[in-house]
């Protein structure tokens, strides 16, 4: 760490500070900025030439004056100190404790912007995780190492759902060596407290590392926070062999912070003012989940994001969907009908489900049952639409059966209580209860053997 401080700041705009006449400074270097009150702010070099450097100041540049601003270059990238002691601790977006306990002391420090995993080093995620939630386990199964976001919107119970997943998630065989990394960006005190109490009451607190940035904390710290959290997760997963579930909320606040900084830097905007590199930037975060050859641990990532104006085509959910391995979409309509969890299955998807379910993993009928429910529900929603135009009385008996199916599906399969932990067996049996309201010949996605075995008219 160099002791020399420079007082050659030449401009301060937005969160950006320019410093002239400095020796060759490394791109990405960490910076300490001392302001006129003697308070230290943190920053990072985002452009460096032999004439001047551009520094992104995490706490912002307001109230800095160029004359009495002192800049010190630490000659190290943004890093996090790692040791098993991080479990049970709470940090901010810079990796500093926010639980009034001493900082982590460790000789192991890692840069938070890790190099990309070599695709040849990955193994394909295949192990089914039972969350106890029928719409997920039955229709959009989560597997160990997957990145599966929750697309939500303001006022919807995404936090409760995320907490239920953390509480209930288990592998049918073992759930030892399980840890949670929780990353909160721009959240309210109420939400932060909710999660903390949740972790405490379910007894996992000692296995959780929390990284928290409140709504009134500096937005720029939201940019380093998920990277801190994932570096910690990688350490737990690949150094300590743990299966890590990373929950991140709310990625929308992250993206907004990125937009703020990009605008200050003058980056060319692509859509809705978000920079063109939002996709790559989000991918750097999301792609850090997965499984690695010859490593015992894994990183399963469940980011939560709110869709601005409930719009799934907004750049944040859109680009996320293009990167993640599916999405669980919550619906305001179901929520307003009092259905929890309000998972709208049609736009929901799990891309890694195909290899984690079926004969050797869950049950042999699982893939077909899932398909069949999807097909019936799609048809049922069309019918409901038709009924709203021409009236339910005008429907044929066949169509009325679909209408009844839609209602039963939502109230029995989708709806479950917050402490209801359904086994995959229960979920699939429930599915057959619903499928059996149709005659076997109407079920063309399940095969004849499965019908003979599970259809209520056959048994």
């Amino acid at each position: 760490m160099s002791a020399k401080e420079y007082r050659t700041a030449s401009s301060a705009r937005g969160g950006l500070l320019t410093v002239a006449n400095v020796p060759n400074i490394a791109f990405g270097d960490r910076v300490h900025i001392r302001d006129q009150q003697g308070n230290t702010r943190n920053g990072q070099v985002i452009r460096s030439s032999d004439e001047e450097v551009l520094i992104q100041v995490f706490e912002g540049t307001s109230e800095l004056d160029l004359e009495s601003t002192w800049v010190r270059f630490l000659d190290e990238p943004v890093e996090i100190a790692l040791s098993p002691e991080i479990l049970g601790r709470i940090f901010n977006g810079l990796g500093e404790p926010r639980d009034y306990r001493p900082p982590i002391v460790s000789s192991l420090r890692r840069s938070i912007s890790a190099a990309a995993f070599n695709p040849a080093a990955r193994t394909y995620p295949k192990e089914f995780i039972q969350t106890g939630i029928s719409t997920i386990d039955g229709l959009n199964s989560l597997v160990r190492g997957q990145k599966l976001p929750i697309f939500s919107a303001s006022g919807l119970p995404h936090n409760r759902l995320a907490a239920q997943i953390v509480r209930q998630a288990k592998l049918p065989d073992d759930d030892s060596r399980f840890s949670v990394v929780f990353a909160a960006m721009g959240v309210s005190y109420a939400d932060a407290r909710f999660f903390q109490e949740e972790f405490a009451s379910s007894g996992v607190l000692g296995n959780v590392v929390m990284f928290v940035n409140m709504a009134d904390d500096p937005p720029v710290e939201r940019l380093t926070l998920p990277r801190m959290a994932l570096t910690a997760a990688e350490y737990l997963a690949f150094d300590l062999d743990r299966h890590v579930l990373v929950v991140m909320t709310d990625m929308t606040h992250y993206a907004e912070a990125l937009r703020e900084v990009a605008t200050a830097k003058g980056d060319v905007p692509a859509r809705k003012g978000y920079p063109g590199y939002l996709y790559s930037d989000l991918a750097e975060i999301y792609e850090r989940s997965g499984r690695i050859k010859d490593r015992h641990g894994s990183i399963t990532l469940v980011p939560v994001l709110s869709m601005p104006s409930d719009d799934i085509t907004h750049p944040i959910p859109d680009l996320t969907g293009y990167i993640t391995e599916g999405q669980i979409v919550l619906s305001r309509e179901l929520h307003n009908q009092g259905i929890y969890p309000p998972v709208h299955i049609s736009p929901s998807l799990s891309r890694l489900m195909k290899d984690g379910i079926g004969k050797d993993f869950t049950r042999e009928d699982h893939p077909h049952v899932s398909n069949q429910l999807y097909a019936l529900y799609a048809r049922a929603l069309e019918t409901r639409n038709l009924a709203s135009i021409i009236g339910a009385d005008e429907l044929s008996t066949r169509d009325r059966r679909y209408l009844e199916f839609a209602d039963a599906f939502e109230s029995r399969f989708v709806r479950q209580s917050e402490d209801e932990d359904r086994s995959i067996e229960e979920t699939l049996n429930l599915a057959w209860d619903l499928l059996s309201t149709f005659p076997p010949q109407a079920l063309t996605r399940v095969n004849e053997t499965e019908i003979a075995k599970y259809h209520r008219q056959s048994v």
Partner: protein
Amino acid sequence: MNTTSNKKGKIKDINGPIVTIELPGVQNGEQVRIGSLGLYGEVISLEGNEALAQIYESTEMVRPGEPVEGLGHPLSVELGPGLIGGIFDGVQRPLEAMFLKAGDQIPRGLSPLPLDRDKVWHFVPSENLEPNMPIINGAVLGRVQETETVEHRILVPPNISGQLIELAPEGDYHLEESIGQVRDQQGEIHHLKLYHRWPVRRPRPYQSRDNGVEPLITGQRILDTFFPLLKGSKCAVPGPFGAGKTVVQHQVARWANADIVIYVGCGERGNELVDVLDSFPKLKDPYTGRPLMDRTLLIANTSNMPVVAREASIYVGITIAEYYRDQGYDVVMLADSTSRWAEALREVSGRLGQMPVEEGYPAYLASRLAAFYERAGRVDTMDSGKGSVTLIGAVSPPGGDFSEPVTSHTKEIIQTFWALSKELADARHYPAIDWVDSFSADVSTAAEWWHENIDREWEKRRSQALGMLARDAELSRIVNLVGPEALSSAQRWVLEGAALIKEGVLQQSALDPVDTFSSPEKQFMLLDLILSVYDAGADLIELGVPVQELSEMSVLARLRRCKELYDSNQTDQLKAFREEALNDFKEIHSEYAQRGEQPA
């Protein structure tokens, strides 16, 4: 490579992946290594003493003043045996070797050679060649069995021709050993090896272009039967996230009747490449019975890898594709996704301060796209053979909006358009290819092939099915306005028929072991069967049979399942079922015909 004659200079400015360097004498497009780590990059513009370079690796902790070296050549790939079955990054670094050498993450500044120098190959010289014969560039010097399926033809490099002075005898050779000598017109002697290098941004030469003549058979019914693609043609697969672009491309990579498949994961997920690496060695090529990996090559620049190498990755892919084309092969190259490539262009142009024209994209987006797709085609090779590169690019429009720049420019370039729809995907109608928005400009050429090889009725049946799907859309609109009661029996039978086409022909599960591949014979038989059933039903409705009675026939449920009950070899069983099904209709027919004859 790092000879003292290389140009030396230093770094002036680092702006993410764009670095200003001072390197006198450097050429535009030249490869450079920068900083003490020796990161690889490429010069993209020159101004006075300074040059701008785009760097393929992260520039974190690099400083101004660090050294720079010019390598004297543009971004090039190694072309020779050992490519097939491999996985390379966007600038052709061998990822498998890097993993063994450097572990889980890709380290910076490391650049093992793409092709294995220790491996020996058994070379068999071409019989028709003798010393002192004139020899042209692109001529086949000899052969090497690269994998069990691929015979690698060793070519005289495109920039060398003259007189063959020496040709090595049959035997085992390393890549760096000389297997022949050519004296060019200037009298210079070139030692030829089993491999050569070629700059990726320059198309490889060929004698002449030719028209596509036969369809690429992908084993996917909606593609082959409804929106055929010719070998050597260009195709785009646009669709919103999760609609099935990658699955379509994986399916083509698996089942297409191509000699060589090059799959470029351009800014997409790491796990999707692992999926290919895991599953292809276990799957058999339906035409040769050999493991699919024996004809497949992967280029991987995943979404989290540096964005500049992403821009390069599709050129690396297409250059390797052209190289196998020049050996006389039919090559399919899949790029998933060209939108991520365009975004890489956008990012670089943004950093250069170039004027954006639409959604931040530079003005040259359209011409770059066109020039890239133009490298597809069927050609007469320099060696007077026929080879082709078929190019299939996924497009990922923001918000699924096809009017955005990348989709709309691409649409003007390509011949076949497989449009994926969110509505179909949400209803789990897979592949979610929209039969209204999709098109193929090559139906009539494909028809000649189908008529000759499969059935003369192909084009007729295809049109009939598309016609029914169009009627179905129309009639469904009416139903949604006034209810199903408004339709006549014949019209309701059209809805039933269209549903049969959708479920029995169009929908095809990539996950079902039988349904995943349909031979052309099976494709036509299924289509013909369903349309014959529809026709038979339509006759009955004219006789007064209630549509209800037909809809409830148990044979229809079976008909929907035929695709997964009979595989492509079980055409006899499919024929038997056809007899059975049509018999059921005949029986009703005779029943009603008798009733009709009886006096009331």
